[in-house]
């Protein structure tokens, strides 16, 4: 079991663990003597903490800098104890250590009482998801082993924990230096009957993983190793919750595309049929094969059909803690990682910033400073899948990367709608119900030497966009490419017949639904591997986002016909009036080649 020991600087964490190791005979032969000698040679008083504070700088300063792992065995079980630093400068190291733990010991100096980092560390434990905590009131020797001091600290800290939704398993009066209530009961504090640190450790219950939770598998990678004639295509990842069996129907989010699990791989390879793995559970790093050639990549989330589905959104209401020296400002862009997914995101707004040491709010926050915690809204550049309140905390946790470094972390509280949400929920349904062909997208692309793509030529009403689009179509056709011209307006009378009424101008009234249907039609062409050339008047960026939400992994290239765009759309190419039609077509073809849409056989 992994245990972390936390608390304010110098309150005696390393001493308590050093003492625990020494008093239980857990140190290698000669280790204690070695530390004694070292202290003598350097004329320092002996410190149990030096058993853990192994770095030269740590011993010189008498402080823990980075969390240490120590291995410890009680008659009941094995432990990895993580000794975290208490100094605020090293909060990131405390978090690194604490996040690996299942339970925590929080140390408070009896003489100094509850201090800033006693509270901040408590708050961080709650954020990190550690629910089992025992509080050690240390240095009882310095307060005459007073029961009253102990009880006062206990009351004060209990109230603090209650405020952040935590309840301590127990409170213990101890002395790391004297060895009281560490491995054996104190001779002086006979009023305490709650056992020793060792008893508390052995008493932490370790909850077995719950197999009943919905299945979640963040896809780590897709393997296709061709050496030694291997032709398996293996979807790899560690199961975050639940179980999966061969034959199960699974969907990949955020797209929702679904298929069946045809096998679960193992190494060494099974020698007989009974040897084959048929089921895998939470915590296992698995490799599954699929019955259909779906396009799956790292970052997708596999879930079981028929079970609760994950939330898909681009806007997230979240609690965030920030660790980087430079603050996170409203509008600032960072990378967000959740599960195995990784997307660009920006801080849209902050509703509250809290000083985790005092629980006080900062008024009118515009940034999240180092070591602060905030309630805020993050906006991702593309949709992500996650869980809130599904009993799978792991699927709601994320980190933020700034300047190559993990600079903050957080928990999603809620998915918020954006402009494309209504489109995305329809697309999700489409994907879940989609019957897969046995011919993969890649196989089609290889056969046709092109990737299905939408080339959308837009411009003002009087521009020559239609001429350009048709010239492009015939040019591509001349090159032997599979291509088709479809004007946005042409969809109006057939596909959109139900929207079109004589008295209304459906183009404006139903513009969004009109665009969605057009994009769905385009999606079919692209899925079939064609280059679809289309035209639309005055396309805006929001229109483009809507179309992209429907096309998903398929590509759209926007060509602006005319001088600079008169809408906010960001075109991939501008074909101004000066350029001849032929030259413009030639440029578009070059763009298609550059972008890997057209390739040679």
């Amino acid at each position, binding site marked *: 079991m992994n245990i972390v020991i936390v608390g304010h600087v110098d309150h005696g964490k390393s001493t308590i663990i050093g003492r625990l190791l020494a008093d239980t*005979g857990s*140190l*290698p*032969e*000669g*280790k204690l003597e070695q530390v004694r000698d*070292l202290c003598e040679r350097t004329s320092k008083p002996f410190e149990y903490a030096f058993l*853990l504070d*192994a*770095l*030269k*700088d740590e011993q010189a300063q008498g402080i823990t*800098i*980075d*969390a*240490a*792992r*120590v*291995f410890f065995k009680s008659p009941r079980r*094995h432990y*990895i104890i993580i000794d975290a630093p208490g100094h605020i400068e090293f909060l*990131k*190291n405390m*978090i*690194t250590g*604490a*996040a*690996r733990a299942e339970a925590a010991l929080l140390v408070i100096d009896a003489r100094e009482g509850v201090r800033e980092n006693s509270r901040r560390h408590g708050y961080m434990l709650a954020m*990190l998801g550690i629910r089992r905590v025992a509080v050690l009131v240390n240095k009882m020797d310095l307060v005459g082993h007073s029961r009253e001091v102990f009880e006062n600290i206990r009351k004060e800290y209990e109230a603090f924990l209650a405020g952040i939704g935590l309840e301590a398993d127990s409170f213990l009066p101890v002395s790391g230096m004297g060895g009281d209530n560490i491995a054996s009961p104190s001779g002086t504090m006979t009023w305490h009957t709650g056992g020793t640190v060792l008893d508390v450790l052995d008493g932490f219950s370790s909850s077995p993983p719950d197999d009943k939770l919905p299945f979640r598998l963040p896809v*780590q*990678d897709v*393997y296709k*190793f061709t*050496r*030694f004639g*291997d032709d*398996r295509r293996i979807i*790899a*990842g*560690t199961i975050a919750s639940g179980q999966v069996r061969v034959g199960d129907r699974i969907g990949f989010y955020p797209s929702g595309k679904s298929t069946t699990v045809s096998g679960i791989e*193992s*190494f060494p*390879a099974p020698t007989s049929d009974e040897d084959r793995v048929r089921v895998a559970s939470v*915590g*296992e*790093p698995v*490799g599954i094969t699929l019955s259909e050639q779906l396009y799956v990549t*790292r970052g997708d989330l596999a879930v079981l059909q028929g079970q609760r589905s994950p939330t898909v959104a681009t806007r997230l209401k979240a609690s965030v803690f920030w*660790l980087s020296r430079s603050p996170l400002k409203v509008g600032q862009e960072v*990378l967000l*990682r959740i599960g*195995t997914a990784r997307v660009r995101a920006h801080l849209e707004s902050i509703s509250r910033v809290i000083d985790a040491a005092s629980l006080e709010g900062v008024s009118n926050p515009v940034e999240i400073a180092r070591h602060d915690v905030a309630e805020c809204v993050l906006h991702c550049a593309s949709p992500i899948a996650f869980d809130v309140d599904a009993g799978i905390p*792991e699927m709601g*946790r994320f*980190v933020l*990367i700034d300047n*190559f*470094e*993990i600079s903050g*972390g957080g928990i999603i509280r809620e998915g918020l709608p954006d402009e494309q949400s209504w489109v995305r929920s329809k697309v999700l349904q489409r994907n879940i119900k989609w019957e897969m062909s046995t011919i993969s997208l890649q196989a089609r692309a290889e056969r046709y030497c092109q990737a299905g793509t939408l080339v959308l030529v837009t411009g003002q009403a009087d521009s020559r966009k239609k001429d350009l689009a048709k010239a492009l179509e015939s040019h591509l056709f001349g090159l032997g490419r599979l291509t088709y011209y479809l004007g946005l307006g042409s969809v109006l009378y057939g596909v959109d017949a139900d929207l079109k009424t004589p008295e209304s101008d459906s183009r404006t009234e139903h513009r969004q639904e009109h665009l969605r249907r057009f994009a769905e039609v385009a999606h079919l062409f692209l899925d079939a591997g064609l280059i679809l050339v289309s035209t639309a008047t005055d396309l805006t960026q929001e229109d483009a986002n809507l179309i992209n939400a429907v096309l998903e992994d398929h590509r759209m290239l926007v060509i602006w016909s005319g001088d600079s765009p008169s809408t906010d759309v960001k075109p991939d190419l501008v074909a101004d009036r000066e350029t001849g039609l032929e030259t413009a077509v030639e440029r578009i073809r070059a763009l298609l080649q550059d972008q890997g849409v057209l390739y040679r056989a």
Partner: protein
Amino acid sequence: MSAHLKRLENTSVHILREAYASFKSLAMLWSIGKDSTVLLWLARKAFYGHVPFPLVHIDTHFKIPEMIEYRDRLTREWGLIMVYGENRAALEAGETFPDGKVDRLTCCRNLKTRALAHTLDGSWPRFRFNHQAGRYEKDRNTDPYTGVIVGVRADEEGSRSKERYFSARNRSAGWDIADQPPEFWSFYKTDFAPGTHVRVHPLLDWTELNIWEYIHQERIPTVSLYYDQGSGRRYRSLGCQPCTSPIESTARDVPEIIEELRSGKLASVAERSGRAQDKDDGGGLESLRREGYM
């Protein structure tokens, strides 16, 4: 398999896969010792029989000959991409401890730390096993490795107890222990600035005992030097011949080693007690490691 070993295996496989997904130019150090051999086995598990990146061995040329024979045998049998590097200049100039010109720590620095840094960044020649020809040839690939998997364990010594799973190294392969980037939940440091690299440590949570228990359960082939072959002595930790001495032990096979570690004569003796270079000064290994030693 015991639940604890299973958990250790699960985490290590997950870390190996994260490394493979995150680094374009990835390599794994293989010292031929028990830990990095377990790591190699875990890689075969993670990638279903394949090891999709090169294994790099730093040859000090003072290794015990059995180690090299064993390395090349597994390379052939498992179809490994095997690469070795060395400090040719120091060897030719005799700037080594066995040649008497330098002390143990400097020898380690020359033959291991420097050879490692230059092999990893591609500035010194690498030699790669050609499976068709059955011999080592100069490797044409001189790209620096940006991710390097290393089999260190936290229980080995003080500075290793403070390591991250993914540990950033600066341009000169140095390690800034006082300011390591955070890693938490299962998010590791997989983004890095150009010119820097990341050391990946999938075995941090394993103890020496866990390693032997795993070797036993998985029947992983190990080099014979770990076992007493009748002389009443065996190696507990493998390094260069002049600086590693065998221990008094009659353990002849894996179960006997496990017994010895659990409750026998080794239960409370530190593993690296047979390594002479650790003793030269108080924080000798920490200094080496700050400069890029494993």
